[in-house]
């Protein structure tokens, strides 16, 4: 079980760390790279709280080994707002529509919604519900989350004409 040095781009910053091969990507982000925004809710690929983007695709980071992310482009919730700290429309919409209560599932929801809106700028309510059907939430009953994503879609779509959101 010889440790391996890996280098990966996390939220636009090249990060290097030495990991055991069995270390999951989720645990690497949380405990090696100090990005505790990604959360663990089940560790067997069902709850979606650990969802991050790897090379633009949403994945359950508890079902990936950190060594598998070698030279990949990883985006976590800490990388959604702009470097200036300016919130992404999704983050503002979640606050505006009470899209979170305890906030534990929120990072996973945000990353899943980012992938959805990147591919489908004008989703229907049903599209949104299917997209987040792999993310469990026990507090909100999902209605606030669906409203937030639809609100953010409208917001982004409105500005798409003038200038796409830049951080």
């Amino acid at each position, binding site marked *: *079980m*010889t440790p*391996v040095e890996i280098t990966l781009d996390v939220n636009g910053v090249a990060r290097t760390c030495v990991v*055991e*091969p*069995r270390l*999951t990507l989720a*645990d690497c982000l949380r405990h090696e790279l100090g990005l505790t925004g990604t959360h663990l809710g089940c*560790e*067997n*690929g069902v709850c*979606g709280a650990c*969802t991050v983007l790897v090379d633009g*695709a*949403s*994945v*359950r980071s*508890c*079902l*990936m*080994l950190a*060594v*598998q992310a070698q030279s990949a482009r990883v985006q976590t919730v800490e990388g959604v707002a702009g470097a200036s700290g300016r919130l992404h429309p999704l983050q503002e919409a979640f606050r505006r529509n009470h899209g979170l209560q305890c906030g534990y599932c929120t990072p996973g929801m945000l990353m*899943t919604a980012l*992938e959805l809106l990147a591919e489908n700028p004008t989703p229907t309510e049903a599209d949104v519900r*299917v*997209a987040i*059907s*792999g993310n469990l939430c026990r507090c909100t009953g999902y209605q606030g989350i669906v409203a937030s994503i639809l609100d953010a879609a409208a917001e982004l779509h409105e500005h798409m004409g003038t200038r796409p959101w830049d951080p």
Partner: protein
Amino acid sequence: MKPPPFEYHAPASLDEACALLATLENAKLLAGGQSLMAMLNLRFLYPDHLIDINRIPSLCEITVHPDRLAIGAMVRQRALEVDPNVARTAPIFGETLPLIGHRQTRNRGTIGGSLCQLDPAGELPLLALLHDATVRTVAAGERRRTIPIAQFIGGFMSPTIEPDELVVGVDFPRWPDGHGYAFREHARRHGDFALASAACLLSLGDDGRIMKVAIGVGGIGSVPVRLSGAEAILAGSPGDPVTVEQASRQCADLEALSDVHGHAAYRRSVATALVRRAIAAALDRAAR
């Protein structure tokens, strides 16, 4: 729920992977990881070696041939879901793929991994059985095999491949353009493992009668099965409701297991309804 220790290998070529498989004891292949990583985290599995085949480029192609659709073992389920060639030549994929797990699992899950896991409720093993697909494997020393899917399915989650054999692709024989197709599944929630699933492919003759038909049922027994009795009843018939009903009743004597989500009688009843609906939908599409 953290994975147990193992030696990690990431071969860059097929030969390197086969060499590792031939020499390492108690080794497991890591493809999409959506089933394997879960079993590692749950500590159901204790492999001594993990061979990660995600960096082997040659296993990711989708090629359309006149008689078949050749799909590399490492093709991600999401790629299958959106590939225009697949949609054109085998439209049943488009109806089936969105039912597999969730977007996050389909982004990583592969067709080869799904076939080797051979989950009783797995949608892709049922689709392969429906098409009489063939599985291509390689092993060290240039050993190559093509295994008919019926023979590939050994038993509960047990494909009949040797420990040193690596699945490299699956060939789905093509059905004539305009064929009828349908995949129907019942799961407790969207994306859950199916309590029962039914799939149907059929093509009509010039007389409007059913010339060729394939029906499969999954999720209720230990392995997916072909409903050959129902196929015989439908073949040559116009697909009238009485015949369709008689065909769907063939589910009554299928092997069905009981667990916390449903007992055998309930599962057979659901399978019967799904077969009826799948045949009707396939007929409707074929007629159009």
